[in-house]
């Protein structure tokens, strides 16, 4: 094509935003080669876009107020509606909050399995959850990049559970040291600025699965379990009942993921 038509202003924006059809994009691309000034404008728009995302993406990682989560479920309408079976589910998750220390020390016992794992989880949590500025290496705004990166470093596919339903939103994650291999930590936060973290590690366990176990290390509660030779530990300075109910959500999501067709 040699019809050197001038590039329309709208086309330039659409090109920079990746919204042009391939044929038109090719034409604009050719025009840019002819006129470097056009290329500079496209580069400027893209630089601006990247800057705007840097500014506004961190907002996505902020903890979600409970009242908004409630509004999302249409809770205000519940009294008048019959078609929200999940409303009951949401309510039962919230119920976990009220359980408190009931049954402490009886429900679950520390067995002969990875004590060191729970201890590591508690220490890691204590170290990073209290860090106001850098609790994580990669923020939740870049969740996909975070998960990809950690999966690559740990050499198996990871998944950051979605805990919004229990009032905790993802803050981000980091790579942490393990005994033989590194582990991955995902951190979450609720509107009261309470943080919990999930540690995931494959580290040559005796290959069997365990039920939920509870440990209390240095003021940090830890529910941990091993599934498919992968260890998981959910840690936090929150009450045991709440931690357990969240651990169940995590477990359920991971199990659903495993069951899903690949």
């Amino acid at each position: 094509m040699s019809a050197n038509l001038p590039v329309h202003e709208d086309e330039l924006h659409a090109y920079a935003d990746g919204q042009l059809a391939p044929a038109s994009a090719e034409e604009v691309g050719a025009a840019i080669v002819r006129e470097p000034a056009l290329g500079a404008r496209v580069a400027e728009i893209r630089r601006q876009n990247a800057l705007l995302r840097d500014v506004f993406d961190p907002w996505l990682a902020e903890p979600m107020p409970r009242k908004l989560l409630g509004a999302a479920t249409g809770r205000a309408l519940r009294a008048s509606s019959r078609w929200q079976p999940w409303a009951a589910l949401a309510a039962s998750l919230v119920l976990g909050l009220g359980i408190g220390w009931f049954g402490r020390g009886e429900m679950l016992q520390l067995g002969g399995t990875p004590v060191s794992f729970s201890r590591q989880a508690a220490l890691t949590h204590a170290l990073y959850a209290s860090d106001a500025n850098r609790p994580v290496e990669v923020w939740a705004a870049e969740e996909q990049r975070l998960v990809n990166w950690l999966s690559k470093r740990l050499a198996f596919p990871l998944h950051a559970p979605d805990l919004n339903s229990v009032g905790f939103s993802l803050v981000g994650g980091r790579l942490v040291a393990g005994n033989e291999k590194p582990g991955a930590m995902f951190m979450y936060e609720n509107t009261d600025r309470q943080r919990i973290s999930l540690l995931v590690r494959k580290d040559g366990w005796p290959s069997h699965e365990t039920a939920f176990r509870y440990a209390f290390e240095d003021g940090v509660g830890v529910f941990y379990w091993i599934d498919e030779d992968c260890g998981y530990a959910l840690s936090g300075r929150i009450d045991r009942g709440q931690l357990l109910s969240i651990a169940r959500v995590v477990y359920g999501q991971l199990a659903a993921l495993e069951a899903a067709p690949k």
Partner: protein
Amino acid sequence: MPETLPHPDLVAALPRLRRYARVLTGDVHRADDLVQDTLARAWEKRRLWQAGSDLRAWLFTIMHNVHVNQYAVRRREFAQASLDADDGPAAGWEIPVRATQSDRVELAEVLAQVGRLPVEQREVLILAAVEELRYEEISEVLGVPIGTVMSRLSRAREKLRRMNAETAPLKVVR
């Protein structure tokens, strides 16, 4: 016609709704009220949502309309209550920069500059550059012709470019 909305999708859309609300209102607290009003409206109108269509764009549309209506009411109240009410475009842009962002002064500047854009340009810019909606979708969300979307986008980008050039003459050096 759906009798309910897909709850997981709705929850997943929440952070983006909240962000858009802040861009519209320029205020963290008013933004949360706007999100809440938008969600209530969405549930009321759930039968109008077409299952399978983009829930996020639909919610943005509702939020835009709720905001426009509330803004109109507020303007009228202002007009009646006082004479000096200059409720200009950038009035009340009071979003604090989070501690996590403070290590980059440039980002705080950009945030303030976006706040200085008229809301019509601000919303188009955010929907296009940050939410990456297609121009046709933006046109539907805002209920304006696509030509209007394009001219607002173009003006927003130009203004931002100029503000940036003025405030940061010494930036470069990598």
